[in-house]
């Protein structure tokens, strides 16, 4: 399988690209698993009776705690997730799993397993958790300057709160793992996982075998978005356990409802803020308290909260800033990584603050935003120098010009005057996003490159392919470094027996880390081949050039394969490992100081919307984006990441709504009740440009990470909606709850109509409480 962009796409369009479940159904020996799910948010499990279920046709086993030879709890950071809980901690939590010959048999049997519960009180919201003092972590904080004094001294002050909603990943391929035994007694785990090394380790712990007995392969994922960074592990562990117990291959595949009710989502956040500013809208002090909803277990919540603390500044220089946060424990599914990893929630908050400052002063929000941008030489609240700070100003000016912002603003104002029942809104918002895992140790990667005597090449690395185009980028890096033709290179499925102890493919770092590791391995091989080629060509080493599989020098040329064969005859090793650890990054969590990021990715977006005053229904009319991807390794892929990330962010902020019932059961538990953007949400005008002259010296071939940052460009849509809502009123700040589904927007319009020039009466508070 070569993974040139085109060939990869060819496999997609023909249906030949296989995903884990496609592999599993090809093996008729495979048993299918189905969970028995808790019907309470919090309860003690007093008995499990699987008698009837086990007598049903095709049923082979009921997996419970008794079957586990090794660790009975798992978890990426804290081992606080029981495989088979005695005390269920969320509605839908798997209590036991049925294995049967067919999936429908397993499902029917799971419905017949009788579980007795003793119901316990449940905490079902951040507010309830705060009231009950229910937390998963101690507070984290970062402080710069003297915010209390600066607040006191500021000529203007505002305070407010905002609840930022969660988001379902809705990767199109649900969680899936298929495990079988190999000929030597090892366990082969095919998992739709972003983190094969951790999936391998989890399986080994649960089975109580050394890691070397387990190989985890992640062939490709049908989307992940963070949802398979830690949460694929449970399903792989259950499949492995089933395989261990029955001796047969076992597949765990969640259908959409199981996936939505069992797995965690983007963290909802509750924020309280106080801001001090001057009459020009310059921020002088900002104090923010964040509380995220971690759900029932820790998962990655503390790091996610940490990234929120790092991104509360977005692009703004705030001399006195204090941000504190804590992770609430609720009886809900354990929330997890999702594209942006806490950054988006914090940036929504600070954009809300800046907009409120602007509208309170009667200044255009885009002017106040720009006025507060970091300048060269500034440091963030955690003390990192803001390298390339001038870029945001450059992006801003270029985008205002290319999007025709000023004349569109005037046209929209005129249109709004002529239309009493509908309003258009326009906004521009910036993005600064720090690149690196904020847990410094994770910033390492390995690669293994094998050259065969015919000149063909296998490339292995620790990164996983989930649609982001990592394999295509890495292939391009290998081709460029080795000088071979693309069709000579085969990208291998990601496996833990090729590169061990890898980090998750996450934090947008996939190509920075793995690409550089592969580059180093290829560079080493090239270094070994050059003298061989020079001798063959009769020229100096540095006169040899290799491109497209042809070796040139001294006026002659040779096929790459001949040089390889000669190197083999001369007993030169034709494989190499590459290893990369991001240099120069560190962070002292206790002090809240350090340089956690290798660099920042920058961007800005202009969004134009139209809102129906009768219903709050809205439509995205146009989007203009200017984004910094460094020297793009693959412009088409990067554009895809920008557009896809933008639409996903827009979905989070405008149509996707995670709703739990009063009993803690998820009510938005399928595609019919949870609406992600469809083709109709793609704006008719969607202009995407990449910043020119943007070489990033700190990353492979001058490129930049692009997976997450564009998601936050979508905050422009939220702010454009606010702008449109404002046009229904008489000026002043506009409260807008999040997500801004039509109902939310409708109440916001009602609020500005009722109180035309008043300061923000939180529409959120006036919005009738549904469901909770």
């Amino acid at each position, binding site marked *: 399988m070569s993974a040139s962009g085109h060939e990869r796409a*060819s496999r997609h369009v023909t249906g030949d690209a296989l995903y884990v479940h496609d592999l599993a159904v090809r093996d008729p020996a495979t048993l299918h698993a189905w969970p028995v799910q808790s019907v309470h948010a919090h309860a003690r499990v007093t008995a499990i009776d699987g008698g009837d279920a086990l007598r049903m046709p095709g049923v082979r086993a009921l997996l419970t705690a008794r079957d586990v030879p090794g660790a009975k709890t798992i978890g990426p950071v804290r081992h606080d997730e029981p495989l088979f809980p005695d005390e269920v901690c969320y509605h839908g939590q798997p209590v036991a799993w049925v294995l049967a010959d067919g999936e429908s048999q397993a499902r029917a049997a799971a419905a017949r397993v009788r579980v007795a519960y003793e119901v316990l009180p449940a905490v079902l919201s951040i507010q309830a958790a705060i009231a009950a003092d229910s937390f998963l972590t101690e507070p984290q904080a970062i402080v710069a300057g003297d915010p209390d004094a600066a607040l006191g001294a500021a000529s203007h002050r505002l305070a407010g709160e905002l609840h930022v909603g969660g988001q379902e990943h809705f990767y199109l391929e649900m969680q899936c793992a298929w495990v079988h035994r190999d000929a030597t007694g090892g366990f082969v785990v095919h998992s739709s996982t972003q983190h094969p090394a951790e999936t391998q380790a989890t399986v080994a712990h649960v089975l109580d075998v050394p890691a070397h007995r387990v190989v985890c392969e992640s062939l490709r994922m049908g989307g992940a978005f963070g949802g398979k960074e830690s949460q694929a592990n449970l399903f792989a562990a259950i499949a492995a356990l089933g395989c261990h117990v029955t001796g047969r291959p076992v597949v765990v595949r969640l259908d959409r409802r199981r996936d939505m009710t069992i797995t965690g989502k983007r963290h909802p956040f509750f924020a309280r803020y106080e801001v001090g500013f001057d009459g020009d809208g310059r921020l002088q002090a900002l104090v923010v308290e964040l509380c995220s909803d971690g759900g029932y277990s820790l998962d990655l919540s503390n790091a996610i909260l940490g990234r929120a603390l790092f991104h509360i500044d977005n692009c703004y220089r705030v001399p006195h800033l204090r941000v504190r946060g804590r992770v609430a424990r609720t009886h809900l599914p354990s929330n997890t990584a999702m594209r942006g990893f806490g950054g988006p929630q914090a940036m929504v908050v600070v954009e809300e603050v800046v907009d409120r400052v602007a509208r309170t002063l009667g200044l255009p929000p885009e002017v106040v935003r720009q006025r507060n941008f970091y300048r060269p030489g500034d440091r963030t609240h955690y003390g990192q120098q803001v390298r390339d700070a001038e870029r945001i100003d450059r992006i801003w000016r270029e985008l205002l010009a290319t999007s025709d912002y000023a004349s569109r603003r005037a046209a929209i104002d005129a249109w709004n005057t002529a239309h009493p029942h509908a309003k258009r809104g326009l906004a521009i918002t910036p993005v600064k996003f720090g690149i690196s895992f904020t847990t410094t140790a994770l910033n390492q990667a390995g690669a293994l490159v094998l050259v065969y005597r015919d000149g063909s090449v296998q490339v292995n690395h620790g990164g996983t392919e989930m649609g982001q185009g990592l394999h295509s980028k890495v292939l391009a890096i290998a081709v460029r470094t080795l000088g071979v033709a693309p069709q000579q290179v085969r990208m291998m499925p990601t496996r833990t027996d090729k590169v061990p102890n890898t980090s998750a493919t996450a934090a947008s770092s996939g190509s920075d880390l793995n690409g550089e590791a592969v580059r180093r391995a290829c560079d080493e091989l090239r270094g070994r081949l050059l003298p061989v080629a020079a001798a063959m060509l009769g020229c100096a080493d540095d006169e040899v050039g290799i491109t497209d599989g042809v070796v040139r020098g001294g006026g002659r040329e040779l096929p790459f394969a001949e040089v390889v064969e000669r190197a083999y005859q001369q007993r030169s090793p034709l494989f190499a490992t590459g290893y990369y650890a991001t240099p120069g990054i560190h962070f002292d969590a206790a002090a809240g100081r350090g340089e956690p990021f290798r660099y920042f990715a920058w961007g800005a977006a202009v969004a134009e919307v139209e809102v129906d005053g009768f219903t709050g*229904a809205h439509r995205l009319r146009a989007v203009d984006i200017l984004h910094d991807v460094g020297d793009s390794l693959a412009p088409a892929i990067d554009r895809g990441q920008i557009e896809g*990330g933008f639409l996903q962010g827009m979905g989070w902020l405008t*149509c996707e709504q995670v709703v739990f019932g009063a009993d803690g059961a998820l009510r938005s538990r399928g595609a*019919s009740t949870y609406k992600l953007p*469809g*083709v109709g949400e793609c704006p008719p005008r969607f202009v995407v440009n990449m910043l020119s002259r943007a070489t990033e010296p700190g990353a492979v071939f001058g490129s930049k990470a692009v997976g997450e940052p564009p998601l936050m460009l979508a905050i422009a849509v939220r702010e454009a909606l606010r702008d449109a809502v404002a046009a229904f009123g008489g000026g002043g700040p506009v409260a807008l709850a999040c997500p801004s589904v039509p109902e939310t927007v409708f109440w916001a319009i009602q609020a500005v109509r009722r109180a035309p020039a008043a300061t923000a009466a939180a529409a959120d508070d006036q919005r009738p409480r549904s469901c909770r």
Partner: protein
Amino acid sequence: MSAAFEFTLNGRPIAVAGVDPNTTLLAFLRARGLTGTKESCAEGECGACAVAVVVAHARGSRFQAVNSCLVLLPEVAGGEVWTVEGVCGGAPEDLHPVQRSLAEHNGSQCGYCTPGFVMSLFAGYYDTPRSEPRALLAGNLCRCTGYRPICEAAAALPAPTAGDVHVARLQRAAPGPTAVEYGAGGAHFHRPTTLEQALALRARHPDATLLAGGTDLVVEHNQEGRRHERVIALSAVAALRAIEDRADEFVVGATATWHDVLQRLGDRVPMLAQMVPLFASPLIRNRGTLGGNLTTASPVGDAAPVLLALDTNVEVASATARRTLPLREWFLGYRRTALQPDELLVAIRIPKVQPTASRFYKVSKRELDDISSVSAAVAVWQHGGRVTQARFAFGGVAATPVLASAAGAALVGRSLDAAALRDCQAAVRSAFTPIDDVRASAAYRAAMLESLLAKFWSEVAP
């Protein structure tokens, strides 16, 4: 009862034997190793499972993309199904034009949604005129790309070439609907071809499950893991699918699909022309029927408000009797209708005389392919500036779709002025007590009752 049937899969005959009739076409395909067809929602929302079927058309036949997750396998008996594996010649250089266009426009990232997009595009590729990409693809979700490259791939498609094997196929007739009597695994599947047979089966098996397009029924089957002991499928009864243009009414057979309703009545009944494009997706409209929508009797069903506002009658039949009743007497309670256990809904009779002004409004989180939180059909007949008749019907504000009779009556004899609007709003306000659910709060729904009337006024009598 037979234990086997055949159908044509990617151009080759396939025999099915011993497969439980509760199996979906999707599950069957995947179990056969045709894993290009994906499951992602099992409720008709995502289109990852799309396949094409060959259906009758004025000139030969046409492809229709359908959600294979919502098709019970025996429904394809005698039929012809194409999957993503079958549309190209096999080798990479033989890609079908829609496959090539998607690949060249970077229309895939993770690739999981891609086969479904291929099949929607494939079916649309042979239609004349072709649908706009956005309309054609409203039933396919992609979480990765943001859709822009997919729309561009669709827009860039060339016309089919003369040598295209599929063009040749479409010049021949579609397979006719055949009778099916199939049983396996203790479950039975009947597909009669005449109304008499259908009514007789209904009389004999009052507990059997009636199946029209399956877009409600099979969703429930998948989501709740429900199994049907006996199914009577109505899709092969030609008399139930017909749409007739009579002197003073349109008579729509209960199993006419939404696709056919739009084709035939779109330019005759303005409110249907407004409503149907907002109804589900092209994939669902190819299977879902008008009769199924009314019989499901969902409080947020979209057909009911429109048809209530148009003063529609429904016709039901049993083996021994036929009766016609006004649609407003059809809905008895939450998902309960006046249909008796031995009856079928056979036709929907829509008066031809259309209102002077009418609007259908659908309030939902997403513009296309979403279920209504609230819907409203507002119809006004006027003469000389005065209202002679007004009918306001709503979905999503009570346990059933409802006609706000008092509000309509309050308007007769008046003009559409601000005072009349206020009176109508007051009348609807007191008439309904909407509820909270996952889609919207009760307060929002209540507000929408009044707001949508105001919207009508602003559009019709600005």
